[in-house]
């Protein structure tokens, strides 16, 4: 299963890759929302998790989520927003748009892992262990 990491910071994409790869995900990277939509087109059925930043050039995270959730085929993909945006009203907008969970930067790996458990993301590595 693929995890799509969308962030304009290469350093942050690397951080997220290092967290989710050991969970068993194959990581795809995108630099902004538009790039993320194109990556999704290329990997139509294999993406099970999206980690997306909010503030990015070309297409921001909120617009990406709105576009994705408008597509009935892709409504089921779990989306976690990983962002410095921490205003409750803004967070409420993102949740309304279809974000499943929020991780506020800075964060530790276990915070992201707990958030994935909260929304019931099944981790490929665990599935392999339990058969």
């Amino acid at each position: 299963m693929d995890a799509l990491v969308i962030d304009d910071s290469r350093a942050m994409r690397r951080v997220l890759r290092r967290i989710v790869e050991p969970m068993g995900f194959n990581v795809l990277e995108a630099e902004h929302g538009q790039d993320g939509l194109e990556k999704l087109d290329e990997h139509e059925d294999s993406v099970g998790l999206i980690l997306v930043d909010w503030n990015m050039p070309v297409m921001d995270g909120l617009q990406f989520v709105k576009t994705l959730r408008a597509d009935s085929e892709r409504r089921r993909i779990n989306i976690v927003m990983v962002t410095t945006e921490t205003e409750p009203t803004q967070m409420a907008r993102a949740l309304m748009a279809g974000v499943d969970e929020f991780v506020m930067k800075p964060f530790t790996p276990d915070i992201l892992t707990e958030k994935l458990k909260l929304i019931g993301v099944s981790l490929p590595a665990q599935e392999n262990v339990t058969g």
Partner: protein
Amino acid sequence: MSVSTLTPDCISYVCTTVRERSAIELDGSKGYLIEARLGPVARSHGFGSIDELVSSLRSRRQVKLEAQVVEALTTNETSFFRDLHPFEALRKVLFPEFRDRNSGTKSLNIWSAACSTGQEIFSIAMYLREHFPDLNSWKVQLLGTDLSDDVLVRATEGKFSQIEVNRGMPAPLLVKNFDRVGLQWQLKPEVRKMARFQKLNFIERWPPLPVMDIVFLRNVLIYFSPETKRSILEKIRRVMAPNGVLFLGAAETTIGLDTSFERVQADKSVFYRLK
């Protein structure tokens, strides 16, 4: 592996002090834990090292400093919705059950024992508001107790750092129940007022408590000797309602300690029901 630079004598003194004040059995091999927790206490009092702090405590009785040492070593790690499953058991099994069972009195009492900064009892408060709004009209008492004055002050304020609310807290509940206050997050007044906090040391005389329907005593008994565990369970049993429910930590059990409880598996959680 971490190695402590403290002398065995110093570690032994700290372990004895903590045991006498709280009955909590610290493992003497965990000198590094003592070092990590007491370092800030020593520095805040101007001591050059933990050994100096301990020498000072030995030279004359300093009640406040001694209390700070005990508090630093007995404050439990906590987080919102820690381990999740017990809260899911409340939502799916126990809240519906108690809503029927207590419909006559329209009351529900829940106790978070060793509550630290209150995340456990406030998690329960948020679940009640979110999933059982019909209980708003009930007399619901949510009590948190701890032996540390400092954590009780923090719990009463209901103010948490970003890291604390980032951990384990579902984002929809964060947005609904908290206000941003500078760099911190504070529970809204209507949530804060659902819980009250009170000092309680398990091995000292207990204050009067209401009859409890549900007790959370998670990751507490592991710190005590078998004899103290039995004594604590007996005292807890006395304040529980018939068929009341006790939650322990995943590594804890009443089996072999108290025969009054029956182990129940519900959803993905285990709890102990008073027979």
